[in-house]
């Protein structure tokens, strides 16, 4: 299998950084240490013609158990349009220091995907040109896709509170600014 061959080659090249190779439903995943992630991506892009970055996302492993699984992982899915092979790379990131190298210099398109991962999971990307919140508001608290972040929290977004107050305050005026007589 071609994918496994690439994975093996990588293991030889980056001894110690490849934590494991998993095959599931015909798709090969390699677990890598985050320190060699950038170089592995570079090798995949140049040597193995994995020119297309399908997908980049973060995962919170809080409720998952497994060998080499750290708290967070960032999943990269690569595809080689010439060779028609795909490979998934998972970088393991510990909770204490959620930092990983950015691959924006390899794929400009990864820019927003990394921003999204930062926004929703709080994983920081080194050397990223503009690491800001993207989908949520700039003053959002917490990282919504983390497992401890409740689907329905006990408090509202604070901007909403302000809006509500304003709505209550302005309720006594009609559209033309005149006070409505309260019944």
């Amino acid at each position, binding site marked *: 299998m071609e994918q496994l061959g690439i994975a093996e080659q990588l293991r030889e090249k980056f001894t110690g950084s490849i934590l494991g190779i998993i095959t599931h439903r015909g*798709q090969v995943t390699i677990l890598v240490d985050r320190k060699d992630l950038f170089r592995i991506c570079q090798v995949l892009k140049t040597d193995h013609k994995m020119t297309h970055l399908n997908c980049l996302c973060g995962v919170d492993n809080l409720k998952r158990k497994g060998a080499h699984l750290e708290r967070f992982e960032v999943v990269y899915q690569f595809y080689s349009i010439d060779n028609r092979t795909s490979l998934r790379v998972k970088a393991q990131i510990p909770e204490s220091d959620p930092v990983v190298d950015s691959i924006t210099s390899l794929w400009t398109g990864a820019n927003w995907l990394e921003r999204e991962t930062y926004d929703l999971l709080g994983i920081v990307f080194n050397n990223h040109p503009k690491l800001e919140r993207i989908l949520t508001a700039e003053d959002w608290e917490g990282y919504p896709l983390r497992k401890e972040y409740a689907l329905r929290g006990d408090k509202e977004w604070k901007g909403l509170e302000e809006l509500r107050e304003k709505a209550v305050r302005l309720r006594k005026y009609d559209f033309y600014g005149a006070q409505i007589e309260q019944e």
Partner: protein
Amino acid sequence: MITLTDTQTIDIPVQSGDEDRYHLKLGPQHPATHGVLRVDLDLDGETILTCDPKVGYLHRGFEKLAEHRTYAQNIVLTDRLDYIAAMSNNVGYCEAVERLLAIEVPERAKMLRVMVCEMSRISSHLLWLATHALDIGAMTVFLYCFREREVLLELFAELCGARLTTTYTRLGGVRQDVTRSIMKKLDKFVEDFPACIEEYETLIDTNRIWLKRTIGVGQVSAEKALDLCLTGASLRGSGVDYDIRKHMPYSGYEKFEFDVPTGETGDTYARYRCRMEELRQSNFILRQCIEMMPPGPILGKDAPDLIMPIKPANKLEVDVPAKNALITLIEDRDVFMEGDIYVATEVPKGELGFYFISDGMGRPYRMHIRSPSFIHIGALSTMGQGVMIADLIAIIGTLDVVLGECDR
């Protein structure tokens, strides 16, 4: 007559060397941003110096929601991703979940899926053409496109009961079979559609104004397109032959004859030509669907019930009498295997990928949606640099973005 007095002067701090720049916030309520996209522009006259798209106005947290719902319930969420081609999203989602849970899909259901995918591709491309032409000022094309799109949407309504939020697929098949009347109408549509494409092309294809507005605008080379992670017709317009229907065939696409149109120049006109050609190819696939529709059931034998347990399968209470269930769950199968999967499908906008992690429960542990629109809008800041405002509008149009899919 009233004057609004409640506004206050906002002082934008002027940085040094910044005095000649004109800041313009295009959107989020603007006729040409296709939804709630905001683009912050720095202008020098009409030339764009920097272009910074802002998204998130339509963020509904689908990825978080999906972690709390069963696989079957999440199909409903996928309707609301790319609401212009909901069928494609349904199919993409179900293909991914079926690969993850190893559910067999019968032949007829596969063919039906291809059929609705291509129908939604045509309807999405028609909407793209309509709005793209309107953006560039040709407003008659808009109405002509909607004429054909209406036929398709009414077919969707007849097929599954809704025009846009279709929820058509099921895990392991589809929801409703076609009727003869639907196929007759579709047959007539397929018959008439090439003439309609001719009509659109008469208006814009060789029109000198259209050519001036599209040729050389938003040009990306093949390397640049790959670097920006563009997919779909936006990538193929640059000459990269990457169509998931050919590269990683799903849902029986390998049985169909069709060509993947690729452009050469990678400009707006090339992408326009690619999509117009795709309309013809989709029409051709529809013709094949009508002719080759196999008989058989529309739901697989091991298709899970709509009421999927959120707990692991072996703990499922299977005391619901079998006759009460529409399709019974096969209890002894290890339905929800642990593992992860990335499955991409070719939706009208590009590559729609679903990345799933299953932890052995009846709901995804993590669902990531690789939405083409999100990445395409991300590419806007690169593509929109140094062009004029009118070109930016053309580029937004040619990237064919839907904000529902972008913000998720």
